[in-house]
Structures are given as structure tokens and as C-alpha cells.
């Protein structure tokens, strides 16, 4: 809502200046977002005189003008207007000024080879008339040369953010009332308006009784024999200051009343109305051309203002061109109606129309403002255009649904934290337009018709706090007492894991929860993707089902900038369905490029699967899962290299999945056109991390050490290549669970000297006796057992 101090002063008697008013408005919840000179640009336009006129050498229709702008030297301007002539007083726009109509900024430009320093303006270009032909001809004298063309453009305007609960402040009078209530001035009484209204409105108006009728009251007045014209300067400037275009006296008057009293009006050219006005529900397929020059096709049950021939306009939203007023209009019908907020909003949403009237009706217009709006409208139109007004015709009624609210002063202090006297309550609420009755300590309050937002006592309490000032609310220091743990187990794991991954060298990225469906599908097991109905762009059209897609899209950008050795991760949600809760928390991490590059001390090598496997394992360890409980298997997902990826699971290989790791499938790297030959990654399923049932101090067993020497023995077998190292470790461990503490594979070999289809594998077994020192014989026995069991179960042969 844009307004100015002088406009506010039409309604408010105050000595306060603009800054004081602006500050107070912000303090009472009408936030002044900015103050600006209403139109500094308009100050650029000055009165000039054409001194000399020549034909343009390169164009028949153009003229070269030497003009006097009062600066001492003549300015050269190229002009195409027919009426440009020597001796003419005109309006000059210098380079740097912005043409109001087109919002084009003028520059010194060559027109057909001749430089033009600015231009002479037409009324059309200045939004002053619809006449595009010719430049403005001024009736001025020599002494006026150099003066500003627009007078009083210096007044500053305030842009006030009006919250959706305050339709009353979408009119200047509402703002003035709030200011008065806050003690910065006195609200002026509306001057009584006396109009001669002798004849009856000749146009019949009816509101059809239908289900979902969007119009409750339709007030109108007929004004005959008007002479439409341009508005006087003062009105034009007000209209321009609102950011609107002056159109004609009649239209400008209706706009003025809307912004002054928050009372939208609409003027019809009465001669274009076919017999009568019928307010009714629209039928699907009906259409009309609206004043924004667009044709709208209606659905069922929209509030149509129509006549015998069809739809004229949409009630509370926009009028139609068929009944629009023009300069030649002689008789008008002025409408002041009440349209229901919900139906107004529904219709405008459906047709995607946003107008100042719609903005007001959907928030709630004072239903009691029908007459006062018509009165002010008539008054202005008769003043400017002459004519005679008919009697009011007001159709329909709106049930007064305001309820009397019980207000207890104690409740105020209970909620707000300081006390307020009954006298203060009375003063504030009365100044806002409420009527009060005292009933012992309780008060009975009836809110004014223009405040649809006040429905219960808490609404009144808000009004009182706002007007008293939020600075009066005491500041009570918080208690430092913890009743509950700050984080639950899952949240703790999240925070541990996040920093654990970063500590392995990965840099955290935060990416959109949505991604490109084309990339997402490469990393998804889901049968159907989770589409957004209204994505922000086509490459962010689905909810992500993996963290990989955005990470890899991000990596690609970095690789293209020549940052080819990368480690990035994200921790956050992935989505499995489109219902609340169908999501899980994951860690996704990728690394690409080389572990070391051109290093004097290390061999250059790419990142590999064992880098990524180690990272995943260490992170799982660090968030509290014991290595001994993690099984590594070669299960994989389709987005990994089938031979270079695996699964870490809890307990057995069929236990809950903790993490997948491995090389991203080469065909995906190809498809995404990544300029790298390897991307490795891991995905950790944080939701599958088991909640430890015991606190650390309880979970630790007693510290027991064996006093007996541990023994390490090495073995080497030639074994079928189908056996993975993990499997071998597992069944060797099982041979003697008490004695065998650890099995470690230290060499794997395939190639020369080994039959194809087989591999040589060497491992060391650590024996840790608990009750005695092992004798050579004991060791011999265990070794034999290991050899024979490995041979029996796998068909391996001992390597000599």
C-alpha cells in the first residue's frame, strides 16, 4: 500500500512529520518498507521552446529541432511529430530520464545519422492521454522555459506492508485511524456530503438467489449527462504516485475512492448495458473480454455481473471492455458492492487474475461502506465531469455476523506479561472503532464492521499490545533447566556421522531435495518416481531417491572447472514415496580423481575401492558399530561397477544394510559425460544403524587380558577364485572361536604358475590362548585342523 503524508493528513490532524509517522506505523504493525521521492524521474521533464526547425537530411518525416531549455545553450533534438514547429512550447525529456509510458531510459542516440539529445514528449508517452499523435502543446510564456513540467512531484511516498489480516489499512483512512489510536494525531470526521438525487436509477439490478452466489450487496447509482475528461493535476498525481496510470476522470475517481477508503467502485458506461444488471453464477464456457484486454473463459459458479446479452465483468475482480467507460461516455452506472472473500479468491486463482479490487475483496471489505463509497464517488465525478446522480439503489443484504466478545483484563496480563487498566482498554478499543460495554470487570466488545479479523479475545489483546507498544512487554530471562536430553539417539548419530565423514576428508555439500529425473533414475530402485506437480525447472522435477544424483551433478561442475580430485558428501533425506514420512536419512559420499597426483614422495594413483571401503568402515566404527559385527559381501546395486562394489551389513550378509560402497558404473559415468575415469562412492543407511541399548559405561565388558603369549602362523592356499576373501576369513575364524583371535589376508595372487580359475591366497592367523601357553604341539594341531578344514570345504590345496 503506497501513500503519502499529505494524503494521510486528509484524514488525520497531526503535527508529526513524515519520519515520525513512518516510525509509528512500523511500531504498530504497519511496516513502512521504504520511503521514496514519489517520482524523482518526473522532475527531469521540463518546459521548453522550439527555437529553430529544419528538415532531417536523411528522413522525410523527421525534423531537427534546436530547443531552448533555459540552460543558456540550445539543445539539438530529433522529432517526428507533425505538430512540431518553431515557437512551440513543449515538454522536453533529457537523456537519462525514463519515459513513464514505456519505462525506457533515454540515451543520447543517433537517429538516421544525427544525434538527438533527449526528446519532445507526447501526452501518450507521459501517460496523460491516449493520443499518440503529436507532441504536447503548452500554453506557456518565455519565463516558463526551464521550469519543471510536473508540479509537486517532490512529495515522498511510503510503501507500507499491510498484513493479510488488515484489509481496513488498504485504504488511507484505515491507516490514519490506526495512527490516531496510537496517539499521533486526531482522526478527522468525514465531511458530510450533500448531493441532489432526484431521479430513480433507471437500470434494474438483481442478485440471483443461487447456491454459492458470490455477491451479497450490490449498490449502484446512475449518473447522467457527464462529460468525461482527463483528471485534474492533483488527482493525476495521486494516481501516478500509486503506481497506476491516470485514465480518465471517471476511472481515476473510482481508483481514488478505493485507495482512500478501501472501497472499490466500478463505473459502467450505462448506455452499453443491455437493459439490466443481473448478478449470477457463471456457466462453464461463457466468456468476456476484460479491461486488461484479455479474453477469459469462465467455469461454473463464478460471480458474473451480466446483462441481457451476457457477462459484463467478474464481480470484485475485473470489469469488461464491453461496458467500459470512454472519453465519450455520457451516462454511467457506478457500482459499490460486497463480494465474498472466498469466492473472489477462488475465481481469481482459477483465472489467474490479480487486481487491486480483488486484493481487497478477498481480504474483506467493510460491508457498511457501500453508501459512503458511492457518495464520495458521485461527489468527485460530478465535480469533474458534471451531470446528475440518481437515487441509490441497493440490492441484497449481508447478515451481520459480528459477535460480542468477552474480554477480561487479567487475560491480557496473563498472556502479555504486563497489566493494562480498564480505562486504557476502553480508550484504545474505542479509537479503533469498537463499541464497549462494561459488565463488572468483564467487558463486552463489539468490533467495527471494517475489522473482519477481530473475532475473539486474543484478537483484542493483540490490538491492545500493538497500540500500547511491543516495547512495553517485559523481558523475562530464560531458565537454564534441562528436563529432556537435547538430542535423541538418532540425532546424536546424525551429528557424529556428519563430522566423522568430514574428518575423513570429505567436504559437505547441501543440495536440493529435488533433482533431475533423468539422473535420478540411474540411482533409483523405485518403481515410480516422485514427481513435483509444479517444479521450479524441468531439471529439478522429482524428489531425489538417492544422494548420488545431485552430488555427481555438482562434481561434474567442479571437474569442468578443473577441480578433478574431489571428495564431497551430503547427509540428508532421500524419498521413497510422496506421503509424509516416506523418507529416510542417508549419507552419500563420492570421491573422484587421484589419491596423490605428481608427488615426489608417493606413487601417483587413482582413488580405489579400498579407499572408499575403508572410509565407510571407519565411519560405521566411529558411530558405534563394532567391526566384528560388520559383514562385507559383494552384493551391489545397479549403479555400481558389478565387480568393484560391495555391501556392509550388520551381522550376516543378509542382515540390515549399513552401507553400499564401490565404483560408480562406467556406463553411468559415460552417460553423464563426466570428464573422469573413476567416481567412487558410499551410501550409509543411517536409519539402519542399531540403537545401542546400553550406555557406554554399561556396555563395556570387564577388561581381561591374557597373560599367555599370542602366536601368529601364516598359511597359503591355492583355491577356487569363486571364494571371496571375506568368506575364507569367516570360516577360518569359525574353526576355533576361542583360540583364533584374528585372520588377516596379506596376499592374493592370480596369474603365472597358478591354474586359471584359481587364486593363491595367503593369510596369517593370530592365536590367543586364554588359559595356558601354547606348546608347539598345540599349535601344530590347530594348524593341521585349519589346513584340513579349508581343504575339505573348498577343495583348496596347500601352497608349498
Amino acid at each position, binding site marked *: 500500500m503506497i501513500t503519502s503524508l499529505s494524503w494521510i493528513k486528509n484524514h488525520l490532524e497531526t503535527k508529526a512529520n513524515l519520519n515520525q509517522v513512518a516510525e509509528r506505523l512500523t*511500531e504498530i504493525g504497519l*511496516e513502512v518498507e521504504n520511503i521514496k521521492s514519489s517520482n524523482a524521474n518526473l522532475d527531469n521533464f521540463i518546459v521548453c521552446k522550439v527555437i529553430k526547425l529544419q528538415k532531417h537530411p536523411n528522413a522525410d518525416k523527421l525534423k531537427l529541432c534546436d530547443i531552448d531549455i533555459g540552460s543558456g545553450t540550445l539543445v539539438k533534438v530529433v522529432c517526428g511529430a507533425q505538430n512540431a514547429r518553431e515557437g512551440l512550447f513543449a515538454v522536453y525529456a533529457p537523456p537519462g530520464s525514463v519515459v513513464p509510458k514505456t519505462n525506457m531510459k533515454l540515451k543520447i542516440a543517433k537517429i538516421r545519422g544525427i544525434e538527438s539529445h533527449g526528446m519532445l514528449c507526447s501526452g501518450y508517452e507521459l501517460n496523460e492521454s491516449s493520443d499518440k499523435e503529436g507532441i504536447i502543446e503548452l500554453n506557456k510564456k518565455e519565463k516558463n522555459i526551464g521550469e519543471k513540467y510536473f508540479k509537486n512531484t517532490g512529495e515522498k511516498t511510503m510503501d507500507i506492508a499491510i*498484513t*493479510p489480516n488488515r484489509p481496513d489499512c488498504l485504504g488511507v483512512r484505515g491507516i490514519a485511524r490506526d495512527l490516531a489510536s496510537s496517539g499521533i494525531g486526531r482522526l478527522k470526521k468525514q465531511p458530510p456530503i450533500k448531493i441532489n438525487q432526484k431521479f430513480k436509477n433507471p437500470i434494474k439490478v438483481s442478485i440471483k438467489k443461487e447456491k454459492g452466489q458470490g455477491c451479497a450487496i450490490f449498490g449502484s447509482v446512475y449518473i447522467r449527462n457527464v462529460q468525461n475528461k482527463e483528471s485534474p493535476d492533483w488527482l493525476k498525481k495521486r494516481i501516478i504516485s500509486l503506481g497506476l496510470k491516470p485514465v480518465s476522470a471517471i476511472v481515476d475517481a473510482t481508483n481514488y475512492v478505493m485507495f482512500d477508503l478501501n472501497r472499490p467502485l466500478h463505473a459502467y458506461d450505462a448506455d452499453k448495458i443491455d437493459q439490466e444488471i443481473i448478478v449470477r453464477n457463471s456457466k462453464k464456457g461463457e466468456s468476456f473480454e476484460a479491461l486488461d484486454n484479455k479474453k477469459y473463459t469462465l467455469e461454473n459458479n463464478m460471480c458474473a455481473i451480466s446483462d441481457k446479452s451476457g457477462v459484463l465483468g467478474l464481480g470484485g475482480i475485473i470489469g469488461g471492455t464491453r461496458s467500459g467507460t470512454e472519453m465519450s461516455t455520457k451516462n454511467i452506472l457506478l457500482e459499490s458492492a460486497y463480494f465474498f*472473500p472466498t469466492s473472489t*479468491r*477462488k475465481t481469481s486463482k482459477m483465472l489467474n487474475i490479480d487486481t487491486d479490487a480483488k486484493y481487497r475483496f*478477498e*481480504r474483506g471489505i467493510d460491508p457498511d461502506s457501500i453508501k459512503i463509497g458511492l457518495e464520495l464517488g458521485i461527489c468527485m465525478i460530478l465535480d469533474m465531469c458534471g451531470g446528475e446522480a440518481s437515487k441509490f439503489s441497493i440490492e441484497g443484504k449481508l447478515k451481520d455476523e459480528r459477535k460480542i466478545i468477552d474480554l477480561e483484563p487479567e487475560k491480557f496480563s*496473563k*498472556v502479555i*506479561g504486563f497489566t493494562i487498566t480498564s480505562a486504557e482498554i476502553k480508550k484504545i478499543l474505542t479509537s479503533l472503532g469498537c463499541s464497549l460495554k462494561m459488565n463488572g470487570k468483564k467487558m463486552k466488545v463489539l468490533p467495527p464492521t471494517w475489522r473482519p479479523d477481530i473475532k475473539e479475545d*486474543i484478537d483484542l*489483546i*493483540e490490538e491492545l*499490545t500493538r497500540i500500547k507498544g*511491543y516495547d512495553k*512487554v*517485559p*523481558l*523475562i530471562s*530464560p*531458565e537454564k533447566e534441562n528436563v*529432556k536430553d*537435547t*538430542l*535423541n539417539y538418532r540425532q546424536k548419530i546424525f*551429528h557424529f556421522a556428519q*563430522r566423522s565423514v*568430514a*574428518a575423513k*576428508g*570429505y*567436504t*559437505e*555439500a*547441501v543440495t*536440493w*531435495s*529435488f533433482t533431475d529425473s533423468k539422473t535420478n533414475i540411474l540411482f533409483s530402485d523405485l518403481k515410480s518416481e*516422485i514427481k*513435483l*506437480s509444479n517444479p*521450479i525447472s524441468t531439471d*529439478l522435477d522429482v*524428489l531425489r531417491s538417492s544422494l548420488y544424483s545431485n552430488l555427481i551433478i*555438482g562434481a561434474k561442475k*567442479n571437474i569442468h*572447472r578443473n*577441480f578433478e580430485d574431489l*571428495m*564431497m558428501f551430503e547427509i540428508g533425506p532421500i*524419498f521413497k514415496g*510422496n506421503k509424509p514420512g*516416506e*523418507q529416510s536419512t542417508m549419507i552419500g559420499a563420492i570421491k573422484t580423481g587421484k*589419491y596423490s597426483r605428481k*608427488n*615426489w*614422495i608417493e606413487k601417483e594413483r587413482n582413488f580405489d575401492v579400498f579407499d572408499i571401503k575403508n572410509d565407510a568402515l571407519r565411519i560405521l566404527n566411529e558411530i558405534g558399530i563394532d567391526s566384528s559385527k560388520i559383514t562385507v559381501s559383494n552384493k551391489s546395486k545397479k549403479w555400481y561397477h558389478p565387480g568393484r562394489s560391495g555391501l556392509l551389513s550388520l551381522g550376516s550378509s543378509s542382515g540390515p544394510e549399513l552401507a553400499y560402497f564401490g565404483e560408480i558404473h562406467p556406463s553411468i559415468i559415460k552417460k553423464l559425460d563426466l570428464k573422469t575415469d573413476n567416481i567412487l562412492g558410499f551410501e550409509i543407511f543411517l536409519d539402519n544403524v542399531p540403537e545401542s541399548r546400553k550406555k557406554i559405561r554399561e556396555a563395556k565388558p570387564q577388561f581381561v587380558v591374557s597373560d599367555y603369549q599370542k602366536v601368529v602362523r601364516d598359511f597359503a592356499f591355492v583355491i577356487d577364485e569363486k571364494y571371496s576373501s571375506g568368506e575364507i576369513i569367516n570360516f577360518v575364524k569359525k574353526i576355533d572361536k576361542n583360540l583364533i583371535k584374528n585372520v588377516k589376508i596379506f596376499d592374493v595372487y592370480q596369474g603365472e604358475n597358478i591354474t586359471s580359475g584359481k587364486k593363491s591366497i595367503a593369510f596369517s592367523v593370530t592365536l590367543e590362548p586364554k588359559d595356558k601357553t601354547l606348546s608347539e604341539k598345540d599349535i601344530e594341531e590347530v594348524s593341521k585342523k585349519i589346513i584340513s578344514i579349508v581343504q575339505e570345504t573348498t577343495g583348496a590345496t596347500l601352497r608349498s
Partner: protein
Amino acid sequence: MENFNQIESEILNKIKSIKDRSSYESIKTEIFGKKGIITELFKKIGSLEQLQRKDYASNLNFLKTKVTEILEKKLENFDQSEINKKLKNEKIDVTLPGRTFFTGKIHPVSQVIDEVTSIFSEIGFSVEEGPDVENEYYNFSALNTPENHPARDMHDTFYLSNTKDLLLRTHTSPVQIRTMLKSKPPFKIIAPGRTYRHDSDQTHSPMFHQLEGLHIDRNINMGHLKGCLYYFVKKFFEVEKVKIRFRPSHFPFTEPSAEVDIGYKIQDGKIKIGEGDKWLEILGCGMVHPQVLKNAKVNSKQYQGYAFGVGIDRLAMLKYGINDLRAFFESDIRWLEFYGFDPLDVPTNYRGLSR
């Protein structure tokens, strides 16, 4: 009786002739070997008379100790000179780069969430979470924002279904409802998380982060709200004094509602929080609307309290001088490394929020 002085000088002369480790060993054998000078002298002890024996032994032991010490010294010198020689050859250029190591970073949004959590933890708040996908009821209706309410215009919403009943939450406020419905008052929670609005330009991003706060108990009034937020802002920006303004505003789910501005000024091209005569909006808050309590099955006659919502990304921008919101989510490794935090830099209240 032997002349110990003469023997001593004899031995010392021998020792003087030691040039290297091998001559050391042979001389040592000449002195202490099976047939060495000192060994031979010891052998004689038994053949001496009682009277002589004492003097002889003491002289001999004295000699032995002295010679042993001198020999040991000699050996030490050898060791030392050998080490010195080795050191001369073992000089390397330590200014050469070492082996590869990797340092990761924590995203500023995560860091700020941890900072904020630490602050609210100290005054008794615990952390709650809610789903990113919400239904229309929790995101709007339960929060006193019925369909066709103009306040919905402020939330450009991403929908997941054409019926518009499934959506991406536009704020973290639905967590208020979920928290209250699943438990009983009092409630004292914060809820950080991702939020989504259909909006994208320099200062808006289709995804951003909010922190919701909710404190409901029997006697929590607007003064507690003010105190809590004042405490938070002071702690977060790590300043002694901070200028704060509570300005009336409107949110359908709180009443009275307020927006909170903090004072700032621009000094040497940098923003200085807490002083100055400019105001910057940082959060919205208010007393929870009785209708919201009712929707969440909380008796609004007995319980009341406040709620607030802060933009986490915006806090990060202000505290750490980051200009462009959209850069947060672009995964530019240069940006992430520049604005990111060391993983060990965990904000805590005992060690301080930031280094």
C-alpha cells in the same frame, strides 16, 4: 710390590694409541682380556701376604676403575663421532611437501544448526524433527491458515499431487502440530530442517532452512518469548549487547505476532551486528494462537506459550558475511572450502560456539 704408577702410565700410553674401534678392541683385550695386564694383576692377589693384600687390592681396584672409565669415554667418543658423521649425510629439505592428506569441511548451514542447537540446549530446549513432505492439513489448516486464506499467498508451494493435498513443507511450523499431537504438555522444543518455496532469485532459493521453536507451559507469556529470543540473538552473534526490536506483524498461527529486527551498521564495508541505526528482520514469532492449540489437542485454557521461526541460511549469511543465498546449494568446492568449518570445530556451550 708392583709400581702402580708405572703400570698406569703404561696402560694410558696404550690407550692413547687407540685409533679406531678395532684397535680399541685389541687394546681392551690387552688390558682386560684373559691374559690382560689388569687381569694378570688380579690373579696375583691370591699369592700375596695378608698384610700386603689390602693395599694391593685397593690400588688395583682404583686403577681398574680409572682405566674402565677412560675406555668407556673413548668408546662414547667413537659413537658420537660416528653419529655426527651420519648426521652430516642425513640432511634433507624439510620444506618439501609431505604425503597426501585430506581435510573435509562442514557446510555453514550444518554448523549454524549446531550452534543454534547448542544455544537452545542450554536453556532447556530439545530437538524435534518432522517430514519434508507434508499434507495440506499440517502445513496450513492446522496452523489456522484455512484454504483460500490470503496468507497462503506468502507461501508459494511445491505440490506433489494435483489435488494439492501433498506438498513440500513451506515452513517448519508443522513440526509444532506433530510434536503436540504425539505427546502431552509442557513442550519446549526446537525443530531445524529443510523448507521449500516455489521461488528463485538472488535472495530466494527454492529450498532453504528454518528453525522452529515452541515453548508451551502453564504460564508462559510474551515476556518469556522476548527474553528467550534476546538471549538467543546475543549468544548467536557473540556480542555483549544487541539492539533488538519487536515489531507487530501477522501470522495466522500466532497472536499476538511479531517480527524481530536487529540493529546493524555497515563499517568498512562489513556488516556489524548489534549496533547502528539500521534494522534487519531476522525472525517471526508470537504467542501460539488458541485455535492452533485446540487443533493440536492442547487445552488452551490451561496452557499457553510462544513459537518462533528463524531462517537458518540467513543467520549464516549474517554471522559469516556470506552474500549470495543460492551459492549455499551449488556445491562449488571453492565456496564450500572457503565458508566451510573444520569437522572438529564442534560448537558447544562450554568451549564456545566458534573459534
